[in-house]
């Protein structure tokens, strides 16, 4: 290859790299609300491996779940029907990075509002109250989290605060952290641990399709879920809060809750608002 050709190629590569870098930066810093209105498209981060909450349906490659519907409903009310809603699958591990990276505009992914997280991102008002608990195989001798004594193992999700919480409730049990819910549940089914811990709403989804597993014990924490946006995006945050309040007032929020969680035995709308 001639020297000049090589130099051209190298320059092209570097230019592309800089472009990639530049693109990311501008997307995250610009006012998201204005950008959504201009470009008529918004990108939400949602879970893709949690039944009832956010699950990728392999048949049609579409995401379905409570949070998916919530994102669609919010977008429609905030920006109108003609805004395209894009979804990016996230895990507890990757959701913060995706938001900070500017790859997504807002995050609705079973994310608990916590002070440490508030330092890094902004949260909307709470849209769901969950509680952390555990699931075990049917017939297991463990009936509540406190029974996870020394010698037992419990699986948690990397990046989720459920890992720290379970250590407080079951300090002698060994905690295994796995990258996402699908992997975690697969590992549980393979007998890698005696229980899996997460928020009840996520665990409901898992047991709904797997009657061999059941929740054990009462929730031992209260998890307030919030929609997260990057720091400095006050416009979209205010819009989200206003729209959430409106949805709760006119009953469409309750409808959504019942649509996805109505079949769960013992579910009361009041519990999760």
């Amino acid at each position, binding site marked *: *290859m*001639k*020297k000049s050709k*090589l130099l051209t*190629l*190298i320059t092209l*590569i570097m230019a592309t*790299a800089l472009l*990639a*870098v530049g693109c*990311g*930066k501008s*997307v*995250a810093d610009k006012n998201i609300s204005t950008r959504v209105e201009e470009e008529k498209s918004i990108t939400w981060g949602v879970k*893709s*491996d949690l039944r009832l909450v956010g*699950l*990728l349906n*392999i*048949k049609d*490659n579409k995401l379905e779940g409570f949070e998916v519907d919530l994102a669609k409903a919010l977008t429609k009310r905030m920006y109108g029907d003609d805004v395209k809603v894009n979804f990016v*699958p*996230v*895990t507890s*591990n*990757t959701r913060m*990075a*995706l938001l*900070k*990276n*500017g*790859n997504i505009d807002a995050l609705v992914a079973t994310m608990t509002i916590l002070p440490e997280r508030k330092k890094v991102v902004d949260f909307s008002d709470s849209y769901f109250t969950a509680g952390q608990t555990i699931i075990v195989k049917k017939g297991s001798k463990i009936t509540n989290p406190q029974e996870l004594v020394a010698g037992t193992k419990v699986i948690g999700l990397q990046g989720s605060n459920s890992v720290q919480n379970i250590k407080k409730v079951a300090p002698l049990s060994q905690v295994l952290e796995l*990258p*996402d*819910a*699908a*992997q975690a*549940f*697969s590992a549980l*089914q393979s007998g890698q641990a005696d229980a899996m811990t997460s928020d009840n709403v996520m665990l409901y989804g898992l047991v709904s*399709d*797997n009657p061999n597993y059941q929740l054990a014990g009462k929730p031992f924490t209260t998890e307030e879920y919030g929609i997260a946006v990057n720091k400095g995006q006050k416009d979209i945050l205010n819009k989200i809060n206003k729209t959430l309040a409106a949805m709760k007032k006119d009953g469409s929020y309750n409808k959504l809750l019942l649509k996805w969680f109505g079949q769960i035995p013992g579910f009361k709308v009041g519990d999760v608002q």
Partner: protein
Amino acid sequence: MDWFGAYSWINMRYLLQGLLVTIQVSVISIILSFIIGAVLGVVRYSKIKYVSAIVGFIIDLVRNLPLLLIIFFTYFGLPTFGIRLDIMVAAITALTVFESAMCAEIFRSGIKAVSPGQMEAARANGMTYVQAMFHVVFPQAMKLMIPPLLSQFVSLVKDTSLATIIVLPEMLYHAQNIYGQNTNYLIPIFVALAGMYWVVCFSLSLLAKFFDKRMSA
């Protein structure tokens, strides 16, 4: 174990979509790391004062770090410095950085193996250093370098599976989604997954053997 259900067209198509991403990421990273690796290898061999040593040190650092760490740093760490990449770009970048360093070593060894007499003869005939390098030394070095380079590329294809942890929708990630939703699909999907990787990698290694025979002829 539900073989029939596991191998439904829907699931297989989903796996193939993952394969497509695996191939895309691999091919782009291969091309980039070949070029960058070649340049770095030449610089490393050329013993340009200070530059070669620094480049050499950086290459050694990268070659001695786990690829997984490089992936994490590229995706989770760079935003701290204001560099934000989306998942696919981050995966390609991390793979390229790592593979370029590996390729650089292969290039350096290959160039070294070509007798210095070739370089001298080329320079004596009026070629510049760069001309001599690319027109005389490289073609001869290629004979030696193609097998290890192709083997490095097979590694790259396999290493794309590591990007599953940053939710790159490649083949392993898709497979995990399938068996995560139905545990009866576990073994069938595993067999399909391993099989697909095997076909791609084995074909590449057959290519390597083919080139090997042709070059030695």
